[in-house]
């Protein structure tokens, strides 16, 4: 039996993702199944579309069941799966599984109406790959296609009436021989490097870092979806900059002043060393509260941007999170310095709600 349900499943998934049939959106409910994976409880989301019907207001409020107990005894505990109201029991950890990051990225892309990413520049970088996908009549014996060869021989013998089913001997001659042949696949290579820079000076609080963390995660997911070989580098800076791993990047809390140029300097160095421009699409992201140490340093930072980073980057994103301490001047300075720059994209992120818009600003430009 062939599965025919695919059509319906795809249709359902597209409705859930909000691609089609907007009118059903209000009926989507997010049920779950509780599964076990080792010791962990795993919540398996089961989205459902609940078409409206006439039904009783609250039939679930009462019913018949069986078991021990006096009148007035609670029975809720035995029924974890059924009653959603019970919620998570303390001490158990329910993890959400399911949506793969690719699917997430798809949803994100559709939700934010992000454009597909164009590979950099005019000279597309292509890789060549050979695949044995066709057949030809000449070739080395080592590539002879046994089955095809015999099939040809059989065909010939049958048409020539040389074949007898009582004595089914098939002898290929030279014309019957078939050989595997390869085709060259040209694949545009899309390599991308992302350099995340974050200001971790005293004025960046946990709330600000949380915002940066979430935003970076989504940007990362989206870019990974679009680039096969995505490399990410993390740079933190206060008065001095350092390259760190992702864990440190998200958890460090430093104190001290802010010298933005230090980060840009390191960024420029990373690009220069590791990512030759003709092979890489480069996306530097910089998050800060916009409170730089001095005007002189601003000048130095702009110089680095102008001379080294902008020419190398597909796009340079500067996100400024709002902080009660910072002056938040840097974003304005950037605008003044580079009024009509195509590579520079800036965004103000006031709070968590602002993240979506900010991602849209950053990636919506087509990166």
């Amino acid at each position: 039996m062939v599965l025919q349900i695919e059509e319906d499943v795809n249709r359902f998934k597209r409705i859930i993702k909000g691609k089609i049939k907007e009118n059903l959106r209000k009926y989507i409910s997010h049920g779950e199944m509780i599964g076990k994976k080792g010791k962990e409880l795993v919540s398996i989301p089961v989205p459902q579309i609940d078409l409206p019907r006439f039904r009783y207001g609250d039939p679930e409020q009462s019913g018949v069941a069986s078991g021990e107990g006096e009148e007035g005894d609670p029975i809720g505990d035995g029924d974890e799966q059924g009653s959603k109201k019970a919620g998570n029991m303390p001490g158990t950890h329910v993890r959400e599984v399911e949506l793969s990051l690719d699917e997430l990225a798809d949803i994100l892309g559709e939700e934010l109406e992000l454009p597909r990413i164009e590979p950099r520049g005019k000279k597309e970088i292509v890789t060549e790959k050979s695949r044995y996908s066709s057949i030809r009549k000449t070739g080395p014996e080592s590539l002879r296609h046994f089955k095809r060869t015999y099939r040809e021989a059989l065909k010939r013998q049958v048409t020539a009436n040389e074949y007898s089913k009582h004595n089914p001997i098939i002898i290929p001659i030279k014309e019957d021989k078939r050989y595997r042949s390869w085709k060259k696949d040209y694949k545009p290579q899309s390599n991308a490097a992302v350099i995340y820079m974050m200001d971790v000076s005293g004025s960046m609080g946990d709330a600000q870092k949380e915002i940066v963390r979430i935003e970076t995660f989504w940007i990362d997911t989206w870019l990974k979806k679009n680039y096969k070989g995505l490399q990410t580098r993390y740079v933190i800076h206060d008065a001095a900059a350092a390259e760190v791993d992702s864990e440190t990047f998200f958890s460090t809390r430093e104190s001290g002043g802010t010298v933005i140029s230090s980060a840009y300097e390191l960024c420029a160095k990373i690009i220069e060393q590791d990512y030759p421009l003709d092979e890489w699409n480069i996306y530097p992201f910089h998050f800060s509260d916009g409170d730089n140490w001095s005007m002189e340093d601003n000048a130095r930072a702009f110089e680095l941007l102008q001379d080294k980073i902008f020419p190398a980057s597909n796009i340079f994103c500067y996100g400024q999170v709002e902080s009660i301490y910072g002056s938040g001047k840097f974003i304005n300075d950037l605008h003044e310095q580079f009024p009509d720059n195509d590579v520079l994209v800036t965004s103000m992120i006031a709070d968590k709600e602002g993240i979506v818009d900010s991602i849209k600003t950053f990636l919506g430009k087509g990166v």
Partner: protein
Amino acid sequence: MILTGELAKAKSEIEEYARDYKLDFFPMIFEILKSDEINELAAKGGFPIRYPHWRFGMEFEQLNKGYTYGLQKIYEMVINTDPCYAYLMDANNIVDQKLVMAHVYGHCDFFKNNYWFSKTNRKMMDEMANHATRIRRYIDLFGYDIVEDFIDRCLSLENLIDYHAPFIKRKSGTPEAAKKIKKLKSKKYMEQFINPPEFIEEQQKSMQEDKDGMPAFPLSPEKDVLQFLIDYGPLEQWQRDILSIISEESYYFAPQGMTKIMNEGWASFWHSTIMTNHVLSDADVIDYADHHSGTVHMSPGQINPYKIGIELFRDIEERWNKGRFGKEYEECDSYSEKQNWDKKLDIGRDKIFEVRKIYNDVTFIDTFLTQEFCQKNNLFTYRYNERTKKYEISSRDFQAIKQQLLFSITNAGQPRIQVVNANYENRGELLLQHITDRFGLDVNYAYRTLENLFFMWKRPVHVQTLSEENIILMSFDGNKHKSQTLGKA
């Protein structure tokens, strides 16, 4: 894949036993399927060819996830057709397969003999495939989205059928013809004094006036709302056709909703009888017991139709074997006498066969649920406590349990709704009435459903129901919803 080897042998063996027990079934066709195939079939209600619709995909996703994560699996599926198709899952062990076969013979006997199934189309495989073809044709003509949207609306009204409609023979002829002039009863010789010519004339006149004014329409409330819409709704021909397809399929599945407890109880009764008396080898017992107890297991706070059903059938068999019924038994006051009551009638088997023939869940529970049974099976009613946010046992009283149970299965658990006036306010508006004495409708769902109803009727629609203590009228006029209180219940 059809049965081979050991399974084919098991089938003929079990079929033999089933016949010996006088089970009477359609020819059985078993097929072995993989989990995703069986999930697909289950998602489509057991039929390989259905019209395309996302909800089958949704069901499939759910079943497949449940199976993948090891939370649930389908052991068996059996379709009410002639010949009767049943599907087995290839991953099950042989004891499970045998149990399922025995179980399926029970179901098939039930399908064939229970009165409530007597009007179902036994060639439904073909019919469903025809429906699919028709709907695909409409999709080609009008477009996927348009047709699917319309199906969504139909499905929203799918439960508004009259479960008893297939069994009611309507009198033919027009309603007007049935209307006679109202005469007062009289002896023949008094006729001209009691019903003088002037009186008759007057009656005729008033009847004529009635006719000139709009007569009520429908004349009496119509429980089959779907059929009413098919007959009188201002629909396009293709829409009417799709609505009738949905209605037909809804009616086909209706008896299964009406006999859930009996059907599962009956099948479990027979798998247990056949397996334990004949089929099981010593090596199989543990596997069998494991599966059987899983099937009839009642977790606290839930009711399992398999369990209630099988226990009730066993109880009935025992009671009729021992003569524990009738006036004499009912009126016996002595507990010990009742405990030892045994008239050795041995008519239990006949009785349960009779029960499976003419009862449905409602009459089954109403007739055979006894106080002793509730006590033996530890039944209780429960209620949600707003204060503690927990479900609590509210009563172990027999009447309360019976009432609650009956409520939950009456009309297959759906609210009973009928068309009372299709010319409401003399403006061609549609008035539905929810027949209830306890619970009202879910307000949000009702409003959304009214929108779909409006789409069918194209004039304002109303439904009268309860809210708390009040009778309310919920309306939708194409733009906005409205709710007004009509009075105290």
